[in-house]
């Protein structure tokens, strides 16, 4: 602790020296002359963090296994970051040279983050759609004669098996296959749920904004009531009830889950759609359309919706991630996607105990983190793409 404080104070002195040196060397150029102390400190701090990361990375590649293990995950993160950045850059380069004039133009103005996001989503989509062809084993297949809990990495010395590069789970199923099928189950269901939530919340929100009056009051108060109940607890409660009904009615529990999460999440969408819609309905062009005698359908779909796409798209990206996390959470708690279907949330729960090995056997701890990483990566990718679309549609410059 004392070292940390000392380092910060040391940096403060360095920052002052940095600014002073800059002023002296550049002959008092405006950049250094008018630089606030905070900015100088920021530069120095940033440089220090960068230096530490380089040092930590080198530690991670150390020959001494004990030291290398300590920095194992940081090393993987840095390597992953660099590999993804290069992949995104290559993907953008590809997009710029192949395709129609329009798509080329799109790729030319694309930031690296967005091309990373699109690439990632594409890969997920391919895995989800062709899961049956890509996955080496079935998602529920227990391979005879194969041990349970084979460690990822495929290095026999560390307890791996080259036939199962990502190892096997607690009852001997191939983790790689389950991850691939998980894309199909988790992402597919999350997407369906989000679309449903938007259809429901968006339509009602715009209706409330356009018509106002008692309908607005009724819908808004109903939404308030639903929002007053903590959403995860509420979903848990409803899922428990549904798990009794599902076998009686012969409807898969998954359908209930989609509807329940969609309804709960549509309340947030409703709020946004109503607020955005209210800002649009006061515009003169809406008044002009009303005075023309236009019907409700035209008003909502032709006049309001096109002007509300930007905020709704942003919300879609966010909402998708939340739904996705809710499903993972429900599955983790055991009421979501049911075994033996592969699901990332369940995989994290089932293999979670291995995280305790992180200190001395990082490869073993990787097992549950693979599914968690898959969730995190998609969340980040979706948000990058949404950010970019928002930026484009809002016409923001720079």
């Amino acid at each position: 602790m004392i070292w940390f404080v000392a380092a910060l104070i040391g940096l403060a002195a360095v920052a002052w020296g940095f600014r002073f040196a800059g002023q002296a060397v550049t002959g008092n150029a405006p950049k250094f002359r008018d630089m606030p102390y905070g900015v100088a400190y920021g530069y120095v701090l940033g440089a220090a963090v960068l230096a530490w990361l380089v040092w930590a990375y080198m530690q991670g590649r150390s020959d001494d296994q004990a030291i290398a293990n300590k920095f194992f995950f940081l090393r993987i993160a840095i390597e992953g970051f660099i590999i993804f950045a290069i992949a995104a850059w290559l993907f953008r380069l590809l997009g710029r040279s192949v395709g129609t004039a329009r798509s080329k133009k799109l790729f030319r103005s694309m930031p690296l983050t967005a091309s990373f996001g699109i690439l990632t989503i594409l890969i997920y989509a391919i895995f989800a759609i062709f899961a049956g062809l890509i996955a080496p084993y079935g998602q529920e297949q227990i391979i005879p004669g194969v041990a349970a809990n084979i460690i990822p990495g495929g290095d026999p010395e560390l307890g791996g098996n080259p036939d199962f590069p990502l190892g096997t789970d607690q009852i001997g199923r191939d983790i790689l296959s389950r991850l691939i099928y998980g894309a199909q189950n988790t992402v597919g269901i999350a997407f369906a749920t989000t679309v449903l939530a938007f259809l429901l919340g968006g339509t009602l929100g715009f209706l409330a904004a356009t018509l106002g009056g008692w309908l607005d009051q009724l819908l808004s108060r109903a939404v308030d009531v639903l929002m007053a109940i903590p959403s995860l607890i509420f979903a848990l409660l409803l899922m428990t009830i549904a798990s009794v009904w599902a076998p009686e009615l012969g409807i898969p529990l998954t359908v209930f889950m989609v509807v329940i999460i969609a309804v709960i999440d549509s309340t947030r969408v409703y709020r946004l759609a109503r607020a955005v819609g209210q800002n649009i309905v006061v515009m003169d062009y809406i008044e002009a359309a009303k005075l023309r005698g236009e019907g409700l359908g035209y008003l909502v779909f032709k006049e309001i919706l096109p002007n509300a796409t930007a905020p709704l798209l942003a919300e879609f990206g966010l909402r998708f991630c939340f739904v996705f996390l809710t499903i993972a959470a429900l599955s983790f708690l055991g009421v979501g996607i049911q075994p033996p279907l592969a699901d990332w949330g369940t995989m994290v729960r089932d293999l979670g105990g291995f995280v305790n090995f992180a200190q001395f056997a990082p490869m073993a701890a990787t097992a549950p983190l693979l599914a968690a990483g898959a969730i995190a990566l998609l969340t980040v990718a979706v948000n990058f793409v949404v950010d970019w679309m928002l930026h484009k549609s809002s016409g923001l410059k720079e």
Partner: protein
Amino acid sequence: MSDEILLKMRDVWLEGRSDETWNPIINDVDLTLKKGEVLGLIGESGAGKSTLGLAAMGYTRDGVRISKGSVEFDGIDLLTASAAVKRALLGKRIAYVAQSAAASFNPAHKLMDQHVEGPVQHGVMGRGESEADGIELYAKLRLPNPDEIGFRYPHQVSGGQLQRCMTAMAMSCRPDLIIFDEPTTALDVTTQIEVLASIRDIVEQFNTAAIYITHDLAVVAQMADTIKVLLKGDEVETADTRVMLATPTQEYTKSLWAVRSFERPLKSAVQTGSVPVVSVQNIDASYGTVPVLHDVSFDMHEGRTVAVVGESGSGKSTAARCITGLLPPTAGQIMVDGDVMPPDYRKRSKDQLRQVQMIYQMADTALNPRMSIGQIIARPVEFYLGLKGAEKRKKVDALLEQIELEPSQYYHRLPSELSGGQKQRIGIARALAAEPKFIICDEVTSALDQLVAEGILRLLARLQDELSLTYMFITHDLATVRAIADEVVVMKDGRVVEQGPKVEMFTPPHHAYTDLLLSSVPEMDPDWLTNLLAERGVDNIGDAAVDKM
């Protein structure tokens, strides 16, 4: 005024960043200001007046840079001065008064707290001293209750008073230079005159130099010693106010001067007994429980323009809302072609809706930004006339030609790709597409530059002659009324004060309020304000005079 030079801008070039390149905003403009001199900077929107005004403070907005030239204030080079030097100057020796006082004051603090901030921060005065000085300034600016007004919040005083409070704030450190950026543009004429008089007074009293930015020639004629005309970033000419007004040398300047000369020929009187196209009969209306219209009646006859004038809050737009059916009147009725219209627009038939069309003040919000021009105009064509496919396209093209826009060039554009005047033309085309008899024009030219506004007025006049349209022309600008109206209705506080043919309205004797309105419109004569003040006295102009009625 002395001969000592205060501000010297030499060969100033300004550039703005858009679409990843730097585009010129101001090209090679020189500006010299002596101590105590008032320079009027005029030009259309986009001419770069505000940008140049800010550059005089050594400041640029984000995305704008001074690429060449020098700005020297009292011997200090503002472009190379350090941040600390500039900080000491701005607010203390150079002050800025923005166009919208309502948007520039912080609504969470009292006026006085904001007023004393400058002097206290700059160490000119202590807080108590500065407050006392503020009260003195408020009195000098002829604000009502100068002792208390500073202790109100910005929303508790009127727009004109707020604008004067901002001027007082700019004066708080007794700067050498104040930049006024369209300080009266958003105000009513009767309020404007008050602000003009007090700004002129105080600038003279403290011998402050000023740059007065505006697009209104008549205003600048009252305020400035020298006038500089800008066009698209280039200086057109600079001259002494009187010289410039009497003998403008450049074509562009002459065209600016000529705008106000547009006037339609008079029409013969309405035949007695003819049925008015629209007749407003004894309507009362209220927003919630607040009554806004009281027993309003007027008729509008075919092929004629009825101008409804009044200040903001007089109920002229509300009358329009009653006619369109957006606000059903609580009493009285609206008749179109001798038939009573249902009060609520939802109860009107498609054909009844078609007959009454509207053109809005802000073309920006009146056109759906996500629809192309073609779609915007095609919709009423399809909706009312039932045309489809090639026929629809033909009709839209004809409409675009009618408003003098080349169809092939504009059909696929979005509203954001059009200039303000072009957008307003699209609004006109959309109204025409319904083939109406009657069009309500709600302040259609007040957001436009004078030259552009004149183009719109000429277009409206031509369309009226060709299609024998009837216009209800809502405006607060009496110059526009003079140009286009056949009959005039003057409104105040939700009542019709006076109505009649234009000639009668513009010749005395008037109703007292009409008289006040007419006399408050600035004229090009540089002595106009001085003469008016001498004639009426400072207490008989603006809000004070309105309140006496």
